[in-house]
Structure formats: C-alpha cells, structure tokens
C-alpha cells in the first residue's frame, strides 16, 4: 500500500533540520508545541503570494476565482482527512483554541440552561479548561472534572460517576500533550451516546500521529491545529456535525458570514460560512493542504509504525537513566515524554540541552492541573515527530546523561 519510510530522504524535506544551534545540529524534540514544515508547505505559501493572492469568495476576477478554488480544495482535503460527511462541516479557525472557544460559546447559547453540567478532565490543556470555566460562570453552568490515575490515564469510573441527567456536554482531549496518553475516546463517546450527551474531542496532539475518522468515532465536534501537523501557524479546523452547526448561533459577525444585512434584520449565511466571519487566513489555509498531502503520502499507518518504534526506543532508554522520573506511564501512549530529574531544575536542564542543540520544552505545558496532580511545578518534555531519527534520540540520551552526571 504505502511506501516504506526513508527517513534520510524525509528529513531532507524539512529545510530547518539543517540549522545549527549553538554550533550543534538542531535536534528538534519540541514537536508537541509545534512541528516543523516540509518544503512543499513553505513553497505553497511562496507560490500563493507570488502568483494567486486575492481575497476570496465574493470576487469574480480570475485571481479571486483561483484563490477561492484553492481555498475550498483545502476544505475538501480536510474533509477526507478526518472522514467528515460533508465539506460544510469543516470550519476554518486560527487553531484548536479558537475552535474550542467557538463551541464553548455557541453551543451553550443554543442548547444549555442554568445548572446544566459540562464535563472535562484533569488532563486537559488550558485551552480546553478556561473557555468552559468562562461560559460556566457566564451562564451559571456547572463544570465537573474526570480524575486521572497515577499512570496518567482517565479514570472511566470517575467519568461514569460524574454523569447525571443534567450532564449535557463533554469536552475531552484525544491525546494528552504533557503525558502522551491516548484516551479511550471511542468508549467515552459511546457512553455519551447512551446518555444523550454531546462531546467535543480536542485533537491537537492526535491529528499528526494517529488516524482520525469522525464518522466512525461519532463525536459531535473535533478540533485541531494545522501548525501541530506540519502546516503553517494561524490555521485550525473545527469539525461539527452539520445539524448542530446549522442550529447553533454564529460566533463572530462580519463579512462572509451573512446573507443579507439591513439595520432591521440580518440573515446569516449557510454553514460553513456562517462561522467564518471576515477575511480568512487565505494563504495559510491554502498551504495547509500540502501538509495533509505530506501526511497522506507517507500514510498514517507508516507514520504510526515508525513513530511507535521511536517511542519504544526512547521509553526504554529513558527508563534506564538513574534519577529520571517519568510523569505519566499510560499503556496506550505516543512519543511525548514528560520527566523530572532529581536535583536538576527543568529550566537548567532545558538550557543545557539547548547548548547542545537539542530543543525540548520545559514548564507546565499549559496543563497546570496535571502538574498539581503530580505535585510538581513542571517537567522537561521531549516529544517526537515523523522526521526524528534514532541517532537524534541516542544523542539526546547521551547528552542527558552527561548533564546529569556532571
């Protein structure tokens, strides 16, 4: 089906990997924060601005036509990528954060009333906590939190025990950005279906790594960020079932999202446009298409196989380092590793690794509640992507040991 992975050739597609950092080769392990971009994405941006830049949808001149077609082509490719039913279910946003805010704002306005309950989990990114806190305060809803166990896995009993007949919505991360845990969302969605609860899945970390099929999952909303899946910054996708999108009120008002405007009465446009007010991020949406093409050309199966090897290799090496403590030990996980080192602060460690050219992230990774849970201030997080190599992991482990044993 799909070609075997040629890692050397694949790495050549990423110009930034040739960069020197503090006189060392860049070793980029900050992929959970943002991924690097293949040359075809960069070239697509370049091509757009040099050849077809134009405002879209309303124009009838050639550039407007071409740009509109390219823009809508991305919508169609995204639809296939997550297997949505219709293109109109694909809404372009700035990123995962905007997608969640959109749903947290518009869904409750239409469907929820005082004292209704929303459930999130202890392992959510701040972007899947704060919007719900804000709307719960505004609309007097109740926010409940699923607990996680010591391994950093969702406690399904905790989830079930939280459900009451007032529970109307669940918002849950697909893969945790600080623990790497893959949540059993299929099971959770089916519990939601049984209890007539709508559910949003935060796919920011899942989208570059595992297969996504929203129809099979049967989730109501799914959100992701292009920049975390080899695409440009400033673009995200909010998938929603068309029935819900049709019924929900719009988020922002402005150009594009209206059918008719008078001072007496304004009627809104059909979906997806109803939720895309103003000039969108045209250039980046068009270039995002090439990121999905990049993923499709390798194939999600190949990606999963290769990344699983990298993950297992890294896990074993990390577990053998004295004084290193992994935070999160889920059975079902991806190659995102948070850890602490005895007697070495993550800030010092991050800088010392950077001196060797290695980029990792340090701190709370926008998941303070997890840090509180594990009673730590922060961690060092090393996260993998498709262009990382065994050699890079060896170099990282070796560097880590040198720093610790100093």
């Amino acid at each position, binding site marked *: 089906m799909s070609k075997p992975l040629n890692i050397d050739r694949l790495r050549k597609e990423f110009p930034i990997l040739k960069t020197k950092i503090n006189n060392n080769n860049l070793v980029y392990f900050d992929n959970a924060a943002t991924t690097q971009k293949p040359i075809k994405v960069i070239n697509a941006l370049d091509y757009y601005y040099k050849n077809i830049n134009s405002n879209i*949808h*309303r124009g*009838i001149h*050639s550039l407007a*036509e071409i740009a*509109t*077609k390219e823009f*809508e082509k991305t919508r169609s490719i995204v639809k296939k990528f997550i297997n949505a039913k219709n293109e109109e279910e694909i809404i372009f946003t700035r990123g995962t954060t905007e997608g969640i805010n959109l749903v947290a704002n518009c869904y409750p306005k239409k469907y929820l009333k005082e004292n209704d309950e929303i459930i999130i989990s202890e392992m959510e990114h701040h972007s899947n906590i704060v919007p719900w806190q804000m709307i719960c305060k505004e609309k007097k809803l109740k926010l409940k939190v699923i607990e996680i166990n010591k391994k950093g896995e969702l406690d399904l009993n905790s989830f079930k025990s939280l459900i009451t007949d007032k529970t109307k919505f669940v918002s849950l991360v697909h893969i945790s950005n600080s623990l790497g845990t893959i949540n059993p969302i299929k099971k959770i969605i089916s519990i939601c279906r049984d209890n007539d609860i709508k559910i949003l899945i935060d796919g920011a970390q899942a989208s570059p790594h595992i297969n996504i099929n929203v129809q099979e999952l049967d989730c109501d909303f799914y959100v992701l960020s292009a920049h975390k899946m080899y695409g440009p910054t400033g673009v995200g996708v909010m998938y929603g079932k068309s029935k819900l999108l049709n019924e929900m009120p719009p988020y922002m008002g402005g150009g594009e999202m209206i059918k008719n405007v008078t001072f007496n009465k304004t009627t809104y446009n059909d979906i997806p446009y109803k939720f895309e007010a103003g000039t969108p991020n045209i250039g980046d949406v068009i270039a995002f298409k090439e990121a999905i093409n990049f993923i499709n050309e390798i194939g999600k199966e190949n990606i999963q196989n290769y990344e699983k090897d990298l993950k297992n290799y890294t896990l074993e090496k990390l577990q053998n380092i004295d004084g290193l403590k992994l935070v999160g030990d889920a059975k079902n996980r991806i190659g995102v590793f948070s850890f602490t080192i005895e007697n070495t602060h993550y800030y010092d460690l991050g800088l010392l690794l950077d001196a060797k050219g290695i980029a990792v992230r340090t701190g709370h990774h926008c998941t303070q509640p997890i840090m509180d849970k594990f009673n730590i201030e922060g961690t060092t997080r090393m996260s993998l992507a498709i262009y990382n190599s065994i050699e890079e992991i060896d170099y990282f482990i070796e560097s880590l040991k040198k720093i610790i044993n100093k």
Partner: protein
Amino acid sequence: MKKINTIQKKIIEEFKILDQDFEMTLNYLMELGDKVPPIKEKYKIEENIIKGCQSQVWLTYKLNNNGFTFSGDSNTEITKGLLSLLIRIYSDCSPKEIIDSNLFFIEEIGLNRFIGTQRSNGLKSMKNKFKIFALSNI
C-alpha cells in the same frame, strides 16, 4: 439522452472557433443571451429563482407529452447566455432524460470557471434547478 449529448457536441463544435479565448467566449455568450426573450414579470417568483452571488436567474417550464419547454431570464447578459445553452440542451426532454443526463460540454468549451467555486456557482445551481424541476415531475 442521446439528444442531450448530440446538442452538447454541437455546442462544443460551435464554440471551437472561439479557441477558448475568454473575451471572445464572453462576447459570444452575451450575444446568445441577447437573443433570449425576457420572461413575464409574473414568473419572477421565489419558486423560479436561482440566486447567485451577483446575478439572478429565473427559470420556468411547461411540460407536455413532447417533454419540457423552458423559459428563463437573468439580470446579467453573460448568465443569460449560459442559461440559453442549458435551455437548448434540455428542451423537449423528458424528466428522466434530464435526471440521467451528464453535462460534459462545460469543461470542453472552457467554462469551468462558471462552475468552480461554491459562491459564484452560476452554472452549477442552474443545472440543479433543471434537475429539481425534472425530479418533481417524475
């Protein structure tokens, strides 16, 4: 069916001398549009309207044993020209013939741009209107 394809081929033939030159094509479409008799105001009702982003089209029909007779109008000349091509193709057809039909002349005479995008979807929504009329008479 055969008739629909025959006329499409004829149209392709007629457009050949324009050599897909956009300006000449537009001018020819406007000539065609010019020849379409305007429809009566009483037919310009919601039921017959095809709303585009910038142009409006009205389409109405009669149906007897010989098939459909269509008449249509638009506020823009180019759209009226496009409409006249569709009317020519679908005239005297049965509902079933229209439903089963496949329009291939559009690409071949370089009118792709009139069907491409979701908004300025002139040709596409016109074509759909014909099919809707056919479907509601089956």
